[in-house]
Structures are given as structure tokens and as C-alpha cells.
């Protein structure tokens, strides 16, 4: 895909990676999170011979690394998922004050509809809140082009730019015309000792306020002229203002309407909007989530409809847009699409489960059995909140499990709690709250589930691993030593695949009184080892249909037709294709009915 002039199908994320390459980015950073994770993977995969990329420990770190690079004169790109923006914002917000020596673009992939996020947020507000200009692409071509444009404009206006993508753009593929990398991309120069510019001491920062206000006015003037804020004139009965993917849906649902598609959503081209409004009979804003554009148009004194027609949460999918429009009289009832429907009754659900061979299985099996309160964190292991485990009682944001555990301790709850946190999440946001527990003498068991990868987002590296995104061999940070150095007095390590060992260590940690206790349950993610062991089998003659094995929640453990005549329950079996041979079911079987297939037998 590296040939200039080629037309190729790229996902929005691949296109952003390409934009970083073509735009002469020298440093690309981020923390993995759906739907943004593929951007840096593609950058590292295809372009690491010309640029540096890293998975930073969290989004704030990623932002600061990019800032340092941009101060040094090298173009930089930061990627984050929707909620990562909350972590990143702390450091983004000083950048409009300092400006930069080379272009800097923050790509945020929103998750409208909450496919993989704990809350649904409209990140366009960060543009207003932080006084950062924001571009919004509608497809892969624009995703690439707006990264390049953002880098150029960042230098022109001395401010970082945000490019707001989203799940439907990031994970859709459309045609992109490839360009070439800019000639002579900016290289590092002597670091600027310009304290009045780069030090945000209030004394210096206060002086920047009028500069920032003037910059936004200048950008507004630019916005009036740019072709990325484009009017496609149709019939003037209905004029639609929209942006991003929603504008693409609108073109199909309202093929005859006039459309003002905003490629820059902050600051807005007020004169262009007023002109458009004056030419159409009915003006409607179609935007997902909050009335970001609509409120600003109303503040301009324009008569506009929007959220009285379209929903304020979830996606406005084409069918939703059509039915809302028909209901509001924007489209005739005859435009309704007929569906072939159909009473399907109940369809069997296909719920998400921990994979066969997952190292987290033993912990949730035990936490369920021990009936302790469990504050949880973000990762695959949040599947521990679902049946049959139902043993991760909270989940909020990255790292919050440990702070919440400290809260249980501080509240003098009658129960001793456990928190569950993955290795990558611990490095991201778990160290600060653990130090808080140590310093403030909180009690409770901190269960770090170390599967040696960032599993849920697609196995990215982190400081506990022996390689980084550039492919360098690096020394891994030892979690146990790290926790000891942080002042934790009881730190235990166990093999996550040995149920009895995990159980006794967990019990020991739960009664520990001298500050927090840390239990590190180590077991590699099955996608890291990629080395499944021979499948287990269940001897139906021995199986008493007690269902112990089904309580480990493994999709490979199935029910067979044969029943135990005593309780009339169906006996268990193991799907040999799904089973990865971890043996946890065998360890919980009370009658020894489960055994591993002989390696030779399996080979035959």
C-alpha cells in the first residue's frame, strides 16, 4: 500500500496511519483503545523505518511525549479512544498556550453507541473547552487528508489540532488515493529555551489568553473560506447541516436536500452558515449525541431544528434518521423502507465469554465461590461480571478498581474487598492508587491478573513485556518488585492455571492487615502463547452431572445428551476443537472424570 498514486481500500484507521506517513510525522504515540488501536499498529508495521512510534503507558503520557517532540521541531501524532480523551485532556489543554515548533495532531476515535466504552461522550466539547480547533472526516480519504491538513494548520496557527474520527469511520473501508510523504519532513532542532512561550506559569500563560482568542478568530476566518466546509446545493426546501459519518448517511436518506457538510467543527464558519440558512426554507442540524452544532447555531439567532427530531444518544443510523425524518414531516411517509418482517421469536444468544485457555478463569471461579466484594477494572476480565461468575461487582474507568478498594477500606466496610486489574491497566493507572493505599494504610487484596499483554485491544505491548512497538528487545518491568518498591509488604505470585494455589494465596491476602496485599496471578493469554495443549476429555461413565465444570464458564465445556439417572441432569463433555487444554475444569471436578488426552492420541 505504499505506492503513490494508487487507489486502495483502507479503513479509517489505516488512512490515518497513512496520513501520518504522508504528513511527515516523526513521532506517533498513543494508548490502545477501541476503535483507535489499529492506527499505531499500522504506523509501526508499515512506516517504522521513517518514523518512531510507541505505545505510551497512558494517554496523558502519550500527549506529553508528542508535545516534547513537537517542541523539538518534529511533527507528532497522538491517538486515543473516546474516553482516553479524558486522560489525555490534562496535557492537551496546555498546548494551545504554548503552541509548538512543528505540527501536532490528536486523533480521537469516538465510540457513539458504546460498542466498547464505559460511557458515551461527545468529544467535540473538548474543542470548545480546550480552545483547540477540530476537524471531522467522513470517510477514509478525508481521514488521511485531514491528518496532513491538521499538521500544516497546526504550524500555521501555532496550536495543536484535533481530528475526530469514530467507530464507523475507523472500522469502515473506503477508497483512498495515496500520496507521497512530504519532502524533507521537519527534523529535530536544538530544544527551544523560550520560557515565556513554553512554560505555562500563570504569569506567562495569562499573557497567552488574548493570543488564543485572536487565533480562534483567525481560524474562524479560515473556516469561512476552506473547501472542507462545503455546500452541496440541492432543493432549497430543506437544508441540512451535518458533519462526519452522519453527513454520509444524510446524503442517502435525503438525496435531494441541500447539505452544508462541515469538515471543521470548531471554530464554525458563521458567515457561511448564515448564508446557507438564508437560502433554505427549513434548516435542520443532524448530529449524533449532543446538540453541539445546534446550540451554537441557536446562539447565532438562527431558526433551526435538530434534537427535537433526532435522538440525543446512540447512533443515528440511516434507518433511524429516516424514521425520525418521516415522523417530523421532513420526508413523505412513502419514503419508509419496507422490511421483510417477521416474527423470529427468540434466537439463541451468543454472549461474550472468556476464551478457552484464558488465565483469568481461575480467579473469577474462585471469587464467585468466595463471595467477596470485588471492585473491577477495564479489560477482557470484566467478563467476570457475567454468569456464571458474576464476580466483578464494579467497573468504572482505567485504574479505578484500586481506588475503589481503598474507599471500601476507608469507609470501614464490614467486608474485606478484592480488586481485579490487568497488567496493562495497572501500568496505565493502577500505580498511583496503589501508592495511595500504601501511604494511607488501606487494606484489601489487589489481584493483578498478569496475562503478559494488553489483551482486549489486540495484544499491544506494555512495560511488563520484553519488546516494544518498534520491535526493540527491552527488559521487562517486574510487577512483584515494583509493588514491593512501592511499599506493599505482602506481594505474592502464583500460576493462574493452578486453582488451589490461587485460592490459598487469595485467602492469605484477604486477611492481611499491614496495608494492602498484592497477588499477581500469572498466566499468558492464549493469544500470546498460541500454543494450546492437548484437549481434555470427560469420561461419561465417571461424570455425575454435578455441573462443577460448567461453573468455570468455559465455552469448550458443553452438555451432552446422556443424563445422570439420579438427578436427571445432563452430563458434561468437552468440545475438542475449542478446548485449549488449560485443565482448570479438571481441577474443579470432584470425581476426577476429566483428563487430558494423551499427546500421541491427540496427534493421531
Amino acid at each position, binding site marked *: 500500500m505504499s505506492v503513490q498514486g494508487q487507489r486502495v481500500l483502507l479503513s479509517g484507521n489505516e488512512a490515518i496511519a497513512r496520513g501520518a506517513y504522508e504528513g511527515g510525522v516523526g513521532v506517533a504515540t498513543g494508548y490502545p483503545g477501541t476503535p483507535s488501536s489499529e492506527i499505531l499498529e499500522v504506523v509501526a508495521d508499515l512506516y517504522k523505518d521513517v518514523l518512531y512510534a510507541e505505545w505510551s503507558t497512558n494517554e496523558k503520557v502519550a500527549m506529553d511525549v508528542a508535545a516534547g517532540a513537537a517542541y523539538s521541531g518534529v511533527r507528532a501524532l497522538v491517538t486515543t479512544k473516546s474516553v482516553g480523551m479524558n486522560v489525555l485532556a490534562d496535557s492537551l489543554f496546555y498546548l494551545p498556550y504554548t503552541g509548538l515548533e512543528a505540527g501536532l495532531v490528536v486523533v480521537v476515535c469516538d465510540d457513539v453507541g458504546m460498542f466498547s466504552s464505559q460511557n458515551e461522550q461527545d468529544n467535540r466539547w473538548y474543542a470548545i473547552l480546550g480552545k483547540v480547533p477540530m476537524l471531522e472526516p467522513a470517510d477514509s480519504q478525508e481521514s488521511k487528508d485531514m491528518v496532513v491538513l491538521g499538521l500544516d494548520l497546526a504550524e500555521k496557527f501555532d496550536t495543536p489540532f484535533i481530528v475526530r474520527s469514530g467507530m464507523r469511520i475507523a472500522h469502515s*473501508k473506503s477508497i483512498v488515493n495515496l500520496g507521497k510523504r512530504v519532502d524533507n519532513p521537519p527534523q529535530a532542532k536544538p530544544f527551544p529555551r523560550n520560557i515565556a512561550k513554553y512554560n505555562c506559569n500563570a504569569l506567562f500563560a495569562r499573557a497567552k489568553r488574548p493570543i488564543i482568542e485572536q487565533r480562534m478568530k483567525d481560524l474562524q476566518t479560515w473556516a469561512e473560506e476552506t473547501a472542507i466546509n462545503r455546500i452541496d446545493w440541492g432543493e432549497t426546501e430543506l437544508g441540512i447541516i451535518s458533519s462526519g459519518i452522519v453527513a454520509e448517511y444524510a446524503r442517502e436518506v435525503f438525496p435531494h436536500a441541500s447539505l452544508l457538510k462541515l469538515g471543521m467543527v470548531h471554530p464554525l464558519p458563521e458567515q457561511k452558515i448564515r448564508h446557507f440558512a438564508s437560502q433554505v426554507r427549513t434548516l435542520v442540524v443532524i448530529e449524533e449525541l449532543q446538540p453541539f452544532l445546534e446550540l451554537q447555531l441557536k446562539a447565532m439567532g438562527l431558526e433551526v431544528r435538530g434534537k427535537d427530531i433526532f435522538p440525543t444518544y446512540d447512533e443515528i443510523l440511516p434507518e433511524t434518521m429516516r424514521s425520525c425524518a418521516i415522523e417530523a414531516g421532513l420526508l413523505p411517509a412513502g419514503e419508509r423502507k419496507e422490511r421483510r418482517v417477521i416474527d423470529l421469536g427468540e434466537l439463541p444468544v451468543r454472549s461474550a465469554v472468556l476464551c478457552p485457555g484464558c488465565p483469568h478463569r481461575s480467579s473469577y471461579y474462585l471469587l464467585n465461590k468466595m463471595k467477596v466484594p470485588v471492585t473491577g477494572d477495564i479489560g477482557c476480565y470484566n467478563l467476570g461480571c457475567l454468569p456464571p461468575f458474576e464476580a466483578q461487582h464494579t467497573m468504572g474507568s482505567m485504574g479505578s478498581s484500586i481506588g475503589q478498594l481503598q474507599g471500601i477500606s476507608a469507609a470501614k466496610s464490614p467486608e474485606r474487598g478484592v480488586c481485579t486489574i490487568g497488567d496493562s491497566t495497572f501500568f496505565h493507572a493502577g500505580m498511583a492508587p496503589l501508592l495511595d493505599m500504601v501511604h494511607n494504610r488501606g487494606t484489601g487484596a489487589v489481584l493483578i491478573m498478569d496475562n503478559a499483554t494488553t489483551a482486549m485491544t489486540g495484544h499491544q505491548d506494555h512495560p511488563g513485556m520484553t519488546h516494544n512497538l518498534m520491535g526493540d528487545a527491552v527488559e521487562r518491568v517486574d510487577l512483584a518488585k515494583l509493588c514491593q518498591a512501592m511499599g506493599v509488604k505482602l506481594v505474592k505470585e502464583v500460576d493462574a492455571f493452578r486453582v488451589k494455589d490461587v485460592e490459598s494465596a487469595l485467602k492469605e491476602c484477604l486477611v492481611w492487615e499491614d496495608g494492602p496485599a498484592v497477588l499477581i496471578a500469572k498466566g499468558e493469554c492464549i493469544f500470546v502463547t498460541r500454543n494450546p495443549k492437548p484437549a481434555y476429555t470427560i469420561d461419561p461413565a465417571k461424570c455425575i452431572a454435578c455441573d462443577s465444570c460448567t461453573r468455570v464458564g468455559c465455552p469448550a465445556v458443553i452438555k451432552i445428551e446422556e443424563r445422570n439417572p439420579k438427578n436427571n441432569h445432563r452430563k458434561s463433555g468437552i468440545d475438542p476443537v475449542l478446548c485449549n487444554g488449560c485443565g482448570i475444569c479438571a481441577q474443579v471436578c470432584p470425581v476426577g472424570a476429566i483428563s487430558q488426552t494423551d499427546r500421541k492420541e491427540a496427534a493421531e
Partner: protein
Amino acid sequence: MNKVDVVIAGVGGQGNLLVAGLIAKAALSQGLEAKRSEIKGLAQRGGSVQSLVRIGETVWSPLIEQGSADILLGLEPVEALRYIQYLAPIGKAIASSNFATNPVSFSQEEILIKARKHGFFLLPATELAKQAGSVQSANIVLLGAASHFFPFPAEVFRQVIEENVKRFLEENLKAFELGRQAIAIQQ
């Protein structure tokens, strides 16, 4: 009008995205525009995977509106039924009658009865793939079955399979033919 909107439903590991890619590439080779979109479940394997391919002279939205898909391609019968609301009243539904493993127990016969009632062409894609020599090629069997309903000849698909499928090429081409014949016979 060369517009064809395709919904492909299946579970992880069935080669859903490969089929979507082949359809898009076939369209591009004919000078048409193509857009693809996908939703993957949380589970890496065994989770529900839906992908959308739209081809035509001009394609704006990567999503297919409910009630407007021309083809619903089901790599798995339960997953195919789950997305039937996307199909246009005159759209074609083609699905495998072979089920993927599901930890939940249910009546397979009832699912197949529902599918037939809603006008599905059902074919034993996994069995045909085995017959072709590669059990993994059920996806290509279904592509062969669907190939009757595109605005270009089957040869275009054979070409993109040859250019893009690296492993078991002969078996995949055989799988494509078996799927194509299976529908021709039913029609």
C-alpha cells in the same frame, strides 16, 4: 444500476472479512466504488461478526439501511436470521445450514424451519467445503452461491480468488464452484 448491498453474518473464525474483501475487490476491478464496514463482538473466537459491503457507481454511507440489503449471506444459520431485518423485501438470503458451536443449547431444526419460512436458500456449506478438500472454505462456498446475484460474471470472482487467496487455492476454487452449483440447482 450496479448497486449491490451485502450483509455477511457469521461468527469469528469463519472467514467473514475475507469474503467481504473479495466482493469489494471484485467490484473495484469492474470500475465500481466499494465501501466495507464491520462489527466484531468482544470475543476473539466464537463471537458474532457482521460485515457489510456496498458496491455501486457512488456509495456514500458505509452502512446498509435496514430493509435495503440485496443479499444476506449467512455463514451460520442463527447469525443469518439475526440480521434478516437488513434484507430488502426482494433481497436474497443465502445461508449455510451447518451450525457453529454455541454453548447455549437450542433446537437446530427450529432454526432451519424459520430460515426456510423466510425464504432462505440453505446449503450445507461446511459439508461442501469438505468435499472441495478444505473445511475452512465454507465461506467461499457461500460466495459461490451468492455469485449469481452480482452485476458481473462469476469469472470476476474466480480472478479475485486467484489473486488474493494464498492457501488452498485449488480447493477454494472448487468450493466456489460447488456453492455456485448448489444455488443453480435450487433455482
